[in-house]
Each structure stands twice: as structure tokens, then as C-alpha cells.
């Protein structure tokens, strides 16, 4: 418990489960007012109950980030409830496994791109004007190590996540001078429902842990700590940056 986000209002898009849930709890512990935004309303309610044990200043809003009117509503509801927006964390994303390129269906491509990339564009587009009204803020986008390295199990996911990294750079170039810091966290393998669901079996995750330099995969709380740092004033000179949080997996060396 601290005060590193005391009085700040944070929107957590994708806040219902996994890293989003851990971030909501971590932010609340540091004094933030938290809006949990997700299309998974059941998950959001569970997270809200956990956050409410820490602070009364928390709420949920239902949103599909790929729909502009719903995103606008998410920001409006936050301002109505808490009066402002200081921090936006974009955690909403889906990972669908796809076959190799030739066999990828257009609708798979669209679903992944719409949530992961267009959704991040939409939430930034809606939140930035409100942040500018109170003199600035911080945006933290969540990419994936699949956005840095080739990962054959879902080309659309890879591309959406590299898009998030570059979107972060460009938005930072446009809004840092107006007081909005924009950064990106790139998690490696982390034990979330998404990761468990998308590896298709629990055994796959256990095997990934065995090959990891730390002998385990990441915990959602460990990503939440990086998000907290970037959202807080401690990162006041950090903008346009990409923080890889993968426990050194990328440094393990390739088997040539």
C-alpha cells in the first residue's frame, strides 16, 4: 500500500481478468480511482469486488473496444463517475490461434485487429482530449513479445501487437509535448487465462516454464508493477518507450 497514484483516475481497458485484474488491484493499493472496462462483465464484477476491499473509488463499465460509441461511452462514464481521466491502460486484447497465412480467414484477421489495434486507437482517441483538459496524463499500452519476435501460431496477433508498439511511438511523438506520456509494456509468457486458453493445454505452459531462464513463466502482478511504474510520476521522463517484461526469455539465446 502506497500513494504512488494517489488521487489519479485510471481507466483499465481489459481490466476484468489476467494482467488487467492485477493492475486494477495494484493501482487501487497505490491510491488510484479505478474504472474497470471490459466486455466480460462477469469478470469485471469479480475484479470490482476485489478492488472494493481496497477502495470505495472503483467502478465498472461494459465496453467492446472495437466499437467507437462504446469506447466514447467508457470515457464519458469515467468522467461522470470520477471527474477526470489521468491514466489509460490498454489491456484489452484477444489471441486467436490461426493456421499459416494462406489459410487465415479474413474474419479471424478482422476480429484480432479490431480488438487489439483499432481498439487501442479508439481508446486513445477518446481519452486523450479528456486528459488534455486536466493538463496531461499517462497511457500504457500492452503489446506482447509476439510483437517483437516471430511467433508462428497467430500471424494476425503478431501484427496487431507490433502495431501497438509503433502506435505508442507515434502517439508519444504527437502528445508528449502536450503533457501526455505514452509507453508500452511487452510481456513475455505470463500465466493468464488468455495464455492458458491459447496454449490449448496446461502442459504447454509447464513446458514453457522449464525452458525459461527463471524456470517459470511470469505472474500477472509482475506486469502490473511495470504498468504502475510507467503510469506513475516516477516515470515522468519516460515516453515513447517499450518495456519488455519477459524474465529474460528473449536473452536465452537461440539454438542455432
Amino acid at each position, binding site marked *: 500500500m502506497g500513494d504512488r497514484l494517489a488521487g489519479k483516475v485510471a481507466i483499465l481497458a481489459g481490466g476484468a481478468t489476467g494482467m488487467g485484474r492485477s493492475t486494477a488491484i495494484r493501482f487501487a493499493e497505490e491510491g488510484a480511482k479505478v474504472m474497470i472496462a471490459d466486455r466480460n462483465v462477469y469478470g469485471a464484477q469479480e475484479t470490482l469486488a476485489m478492488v472494493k476491499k481496497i477502495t470505495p473509488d472503483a467502478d465498472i463499465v461494459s465496453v467492446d473496444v472495437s466499437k467507437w460509441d462504446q469506447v466514447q461511452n467508457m470515457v464519458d462514464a469515467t468522467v461522470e463517475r470520477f471527474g477526470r481521466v489521468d491514466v489509460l491502460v490498454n489491456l484489452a486484447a484477444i489471441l486467436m490461434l490461426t493456421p499459416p497465412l494462406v489459410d487465415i480467414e479474413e474474419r479471424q484477421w478482422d476480429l484480432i485487429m479490431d480488438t487489439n489495434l483499432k481498439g487501442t486507437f479508439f481508446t486513445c482517441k477518446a481519452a486523450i482530449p479528456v486528459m488534455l483538459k486536466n493538463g496531461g496524463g499517462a497511457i500504457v499500452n500492452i503489446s506482447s513479445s509476439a510483437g517483437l519476435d516471430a511467433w508462428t501460431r497467430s500471424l494476425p496477433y503478431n501484427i496487431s501487437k507490433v502495431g501497438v508498439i509503433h502506435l505508442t511511438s507515434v502517439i508519444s511523438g504527437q502528445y*508528449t509535448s502536450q503533457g501526455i506520456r505514452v509507453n508500452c509494456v511487452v510481456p513475455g509468457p505470463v500465466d493468464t487465462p488468455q495464455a492458458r486458453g491459447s496454449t490449448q493445454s496446461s502442459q504447454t505452459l509447464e513446458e514453457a516454464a522449464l525452458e525459461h531462464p*527463471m524456470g517459470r513463466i511470469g505472474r500477472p502482478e509482475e506486469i502490473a*508493477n511495470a504498468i504502475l511504474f510507467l503510469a506513475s510520476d516516477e516515470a515522468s*521522463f519516460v515516453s515513447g518507450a517499450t*518495456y519488455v517484461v519477459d524474465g529474460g526469455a528473449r536473452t*536465452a539465446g537461440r539454438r542455432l
Partner: protein
Amino acid sequence: MTGRLKNKVALITGGASGIGRAAALRFAHEGAKVMIADRNSALSAQTLAELHQITPHAASVSVDVSKTDQVQQMVDDTVSRFGALNILVNAAGVLLLSPPLAEIDERDWDLMMNTNLRGLFLCCKAAIPVIEQSGGGAIVNISSMAGISAYARSLPYAVSKAGVIHFTLGAASQYTSRGIRINCIAPGTVDTPQARGSSGSADALRKIAETHPMGRIGRPEDIADTILFLSSDEAAYISGETIIVDGGSRTLPPNI
């Protein structure tokens, strides 16, 4: 004072001034026992006096990091004074302005390579066995944006700092699995004695600030905050990474 490095023993090379000094003060505030190592003994004494206002657990040692025996002495002194070593911050570095490549004096090349890269190697070589004996820990290396982008004013400096980034990657690939996280920070222009001295005039720094997205250059404290983050358990799942702290200046599009 929040105790994020409570009872950790930290050795900070280049700790007498600039980024190293800011890190030493920040670490002391967070409960660490701090050994500052620098070849500038007069400045070390000043910084040590400041540290002693925060904690009795601080000391200094004179070192030229390019000299093997002095580096070993530095590590030995730290262990005999504080009984362990958990964190090594490699902030010692020199920047000599250089003419274009064909006219670079071989001695200037050697000076920068010896301190910035060979010194980093020697410090890690001496410290890692002791960090392992102390149950693991963290190393933070200070590179520079000059190691990422082209830097016309000193090719040897730029190359040495690129080396620091890749050194970090390689060292992490070997020691992450043994409980030592190794990371790197690439600061942009920061208001240090080094930067003031190397830019040639205060006016030159002022001009950089005017075109900077944040309207200012970095403060040593900005970098110290990131060093603290990477040294602390909050960064438990980060290793091998290079974190840019440049206030978003890299995200400004080039003037084409």
C-alpha cells in the same frame, strides 16, 4: 522513505556525480546500504556527506574501473564493509568529443573503450560471484541514446554505449537463470556535469531543451527512478532489457 531496497547492499560506480550520485541518494532513501565508487575522490567525499544525512550505511571507495586490481579492491571493500553485495549499478563512463572517424586519436578511442566497456566487463566479472554468494541480485548498466541512434560528436562513445546494450543481453543470457537480473538504461540528454561539459556551453543544453517534447532535458533523478525500479523486486520478471529514458525525444519525427 518506503523501503523498496531495505537492507540491500548496492555498489554504484561513477557514484560521485550526475546519474550515479542521484541513484546513490535515491537508493539510500529506499533503505539500501550504499557504496559509491568513483575516481574523483573529492566529489565522492561530497556525495558521501549527503548520503550520511540520510543513512549511516554509506561509504566510498576510489576506483578507476579500467584497472583490474582496483576493481577487485572495490568489490572486496564493499563486502568487508557491508557483508554482501546485491546490486551493482554501472554508471561510470566517459565522453570525449571526437572529430570524424579518420581523425580520431587512437588514445581517445582507448580511453572511452577502456572505461565504458572494459570497465563494465571488469566490474561485472568481479561482482557477479559475490552477488551469487549473496543469494542473487540485480545489475543495472547505463548506456546512452548515443548507443541506439547515430551520434556524430563521438563515434567511440556511441560504439562503446552500443556495446553496453549488447553486453547486457549476453550477460543476462548467462546469469538470469542463476538469480541475477541484468538490465540496461539508455538515457537521452540529461543535465549532468558530463553533459554540461561535453555540450560545450549551457546554451547548447538550453537549445536541446527548447526542441524537446517535454520542454526540458532529463534530470539525474529521472534516471535514478528507473535505476531504482530495475534494481527492486518490482522488476522481478525483467532481465536482459534496455530501457530508454529520454522523455520521448526519440519519438519526435526526424526533420525530413
